[in-house]
């Protein structure tokens, strides 16, 4: 295994960690939307990560030859919470749609579990290599 391979794997691993962060933030935001389902004038919030991830992977990022050097911090896209002020379903100005929030919550939980099992399998692969195939 060359040095390049190690850093390539590290990038994937960092990406999984960042996605877990995004998923965790999204769970909080969806919980907040559900908790405010009866709050007059509340506008639903959502998390953007995947679309900025696409942009940032296309862009040129700062090169580092040492992991201790500073980077721009956004090499995998920024996790940001935004407010959807567009439409309103109810007369009180609240635009939380409980069905879509529940569907998003379920989807997000599955996504989180997929990411944790990815992280787990990567760790167990490394353990397999370290122990030379044994336990």
């Amino acid at each position, binding site marked *: 295994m060359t040095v390049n391979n190690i850093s390539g794997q590290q990038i994937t691993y960092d990406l999984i960690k960042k996605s*877990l962060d995004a*998923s*965790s*933030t999204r*769970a*909080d*935001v*969806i*919980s*907040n939307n*559900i*908790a*405010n*389902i*009866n*709050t*007059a004038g*509340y506008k639903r*919030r959502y998390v953007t990560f995947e679309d900025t991830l696409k942009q940032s992977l296309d862009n040129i990022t700062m090169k580092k030859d040492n992991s201790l050097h500073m980077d721009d*911090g956004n090499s995998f896209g920024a996790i940001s*919470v935004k407010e959807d002020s567009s439409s309103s379903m109810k007369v009180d100005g609240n635009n939380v749609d*409980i069905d879509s*929030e*529940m569907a998003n*919550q*379920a989807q*997000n*939980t599955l996504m*989180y*579990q997929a990411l*944790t*099992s990815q*992280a*787990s399998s990567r*760790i*167990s692969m490394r353990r397999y290599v370290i122990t030379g195939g044994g336990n």
Partner: protein
Amino acid sequence: MGAFTGLNISSSGLSAERLRMDTISSNIANADTTRTETGEPYRRKIAVFQENLDRELNSVTGQYETKLKGVKAVQIVNDNSSLRQVYDPSNPDANAEGYVSMPNVNILNEMADLISSTRAYEANVSAINAQKSMFSSALQIGR
């Protein structure tokens, strides 16, 4: 953002919905109450909710960020719409014309609100369960 922020947010939703249910129960229980401490007939009570936000200094970027903290009940207000006038001369609270001012509680509205509140409560419970299953899968990393 702490690890259990989501659980705290959902539990704030649970207590807010419970307060709303208590208010609705009080309205239903007092649907025919013609006397209160002030001498007026009972007026319908409404729980008012507000989104709970907190500003926090980010240790990495050094900027203030808005943190979501769920929902909070700010006050319980009286519904000041007009009271129902019922003709009942034998009632001790009847006025000179024989009309009694009854509370402005509509039982059908209250039952519909009660169901909406129950559903919102259940939605918060399932959000807590989703968060719990995320935590338990995070604990399985590396096993």
